[in-house]
């Protein structure tokens, strides 16, 4: 039963688990004398260990753990293919950057448990991307969510954070119960939990149309919550605002991408033959999500809330690729998520860096940033223009691909809505940059208030900006990877 492929198929998860256990064991004993607090013994920051470990996992997995032809392992609980592998690498990258961003967070950074929770959540996401069985899938989703509930509410003394954690938990528990109901009906009607066996059951058309539609609706509720599509988006702004900033960044990028990985596999493998039924529903969801997200982002005055609404809108754009139900469609979704993870992590990285010094996430805190810290302002320019979809950044190529997939699938109206929404988006992204570049601090000399960028933040931001530019200029190899991932679904 066990071959080397079996172990390779869960290599990243195993390595992350080992890293997590090492972290839990070593961290309490690993103390240094901290001169700043009068020579008291302080726990050493576990962030370096986590981030370094995750990047080592990334390198090892890319070197030895690459998949060959799609195979099923662990009694077909796991599908070992490029789609899963590519997403896993994305999640590990995102988690590594998040660990760097957590390091200098005043209340979270010095507590090893936070990094352990982050690692556990990453394990869950990796399993989500490769799960080929409803039971594994459900467990993976819960393994992803439960650590995130705790991380969102990590700052016990901060009532916004507690509220965020609690709200996320309540929404998550409810939607996951509804989705589980859908899964159980799926099993009840077909007698199997394996996704690929389910696909055969759907091919033979043994389910009545209303039953199938009901099932799909139940499942969409759970996954829609994960990717924050519009009727299930209410948690996002409050949770993003209250949670520690790096955690919000992780929620809006890796967690969302994991949701899309599941949607892609579930809907293109299991429900592929009934695509006409759900594609129309997804098209409407996509249009509403883009519009509502962008319009609600317009009046925001708090950068974290604005990014929350913008991340809702981005889920809408990415969904166009799913609606297309084509190879190009899935390729574009994968590429979109790649560009989005890199860009949005950079955006949240800046919020974290600036918020740490100014103690505020309001737009007003960003007045004169270009004079206080020119390099930081430049990073922000790159990230926000990429979010808005401007060349030569990754966001531009991503949007082009998604819209191209929409046109190829004859969803012209959806693409028109998408383009109109991009214009709205451009407005509010530039609005923030207006504070950064044009506005001045009142009666203050900006150069007397520089914004210190500590080493972990500098590393994270440089890596992300290079990524943003690389994705927008040398995009062919990334497109190739996305394409290889998409091929596994057809």
């Amino acid at each position, binding site marked *: 039963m066990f071959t080397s492929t079996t172990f390779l198929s869960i290599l990243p998860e195993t390595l992350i688990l080992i890293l997590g256990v090492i972290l839990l064991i070593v961290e309490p004993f690993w103390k240094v004398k901290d001169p700043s607090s009068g020579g008291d013994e302080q726990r050493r920051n576990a962030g370096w260990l986590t981030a370094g470990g995750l990047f080592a996992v990334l390198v090892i997995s890319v070197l030895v753990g690459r998949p060959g032809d799609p195979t099923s392992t662990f009694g077909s*609980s796991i599908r070992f293919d490029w789609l899963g592998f590519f997403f896993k690498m994305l999640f590990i990258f995102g988690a590594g950057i998040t660990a760097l961003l957590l390091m200098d967070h005043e209340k979270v950074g010095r507590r090893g448990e936070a990094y352990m929770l982050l690692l556990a959540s990453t394990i869950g996401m990796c399993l989500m991307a490769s799960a080929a069985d409803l039971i594994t899938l459900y467990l993976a989703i819960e*393994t992803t969510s439960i650590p995130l509930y705790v991380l969102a509410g990590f700052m016990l003394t901060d009532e916004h954070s507690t509220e965020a954690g609690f709200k996320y938990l309540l929404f998550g528990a409810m939607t996951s119960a509804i989705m589980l109901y859908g899964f159980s009906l799926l099993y009840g009607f077909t007698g199997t939990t394996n996704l690929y066996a389910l696909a055969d059951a759907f091919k033979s058309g043994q389910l009545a149309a209303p039953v199938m539609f009901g099932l799909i609706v139940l499942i969409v509720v759970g996954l829609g919550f994960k990717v924050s599509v519009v009727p299930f988006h209410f948690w996002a702004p409050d949770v993003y605002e209250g949670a520690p900033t790096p955690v919000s960044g992780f929620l809006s990028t890796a967690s969302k991408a994991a949701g899309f990985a599941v949607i892609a596999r579930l809907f293109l493998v299991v429900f592929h033959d009934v695509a006409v039924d759900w594609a129309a529903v997804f098209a409407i969801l996509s249009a509403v999500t883009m519009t509502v997200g962008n319009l609600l982002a317009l009046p925001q005055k708090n950068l974290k809330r604005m990014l929350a609404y913008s991340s809702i809108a981005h889920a809408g754009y990415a969904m166009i690729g799913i609606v297309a139900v084509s190879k190009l469609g899935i390729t574009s979704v994968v590429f979109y998520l790649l560009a989005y993870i890199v860009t949005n992590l950079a955006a949240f990285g800046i919020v974290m860096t600036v918020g740490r010094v100014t103690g505020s996430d309001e737009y007003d805190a960003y007045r004169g940033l270009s004079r206080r810290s020119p390099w930081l302002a430049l990073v922000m320019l790159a990230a926000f223009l990429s979010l808005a979809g401007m060349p030569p950044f990754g966001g531009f190529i991503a949007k082009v691909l998604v819209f191209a997939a929409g046109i190829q699938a004859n969803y012209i109206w959806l693409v028109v809505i998408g383009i109109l929404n991009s214009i709205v988006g451009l407005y509010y992204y530039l609005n923030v940059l207006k504070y950064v570049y044009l506005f001045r601090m009142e009666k203050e000399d900006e150069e007397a208030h520089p914004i210190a960028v500590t080493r972990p933040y500098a590393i994270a931001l440089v890596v992300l900006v290079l990524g943003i530019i690389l994705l927008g200029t040398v995009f062919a190899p990334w497109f190739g990877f996305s394409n290889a991932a998409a091929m596994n679904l057809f």
Partner: protein
Amino acid sequence: MTPDLIAFFVLALIAIAAALGMLLGRNVVYSALFLVLNFGTVAVFYILLDAPFIALTQVSVYAGAIMVLFLFVIMLLGTETLPVSKALPWQRPLAFVLALILAGEAGYLLFFRKVTSGTIPQPVQTFGSPQAVGQALFNQYLLPFEVTSVLLLIAMVGAIVLTIKEKGGQGK
């Protein structure tokens, strides 16, 4: 009447009485104990249906772990007796209407629709036996089984994080 049928009716009566006792009890601890009784009778139902594994799970997980947790929480909160409840004004009429609808539906299905259940295929003798469950759990579902251990570890870490008292200020 076969012995099974007699056992079923006796148990059914106990189960319903226990459920009613749980709902109508004014003392939370009594309610919780009634629920334990209800879970216990349901476990015996499972044994009657030749499903010993589920029966034992029912006893150890529901009647054992979960209900003990309930009792602990009740004790710790010190809310043994319920305060006089302030029912919402529209709650009773709504409950009445919903109950009527449910009774109507059940009556319709029982008396007016000829339900033909068809032939339900008899499950194999070992279906759901502890051996079969164990075989499936450690072969086909080995990975999900291991994932639950990660989940439990995280639940512990999370519980500690959320309940620990910070020693004022940064770091600990």
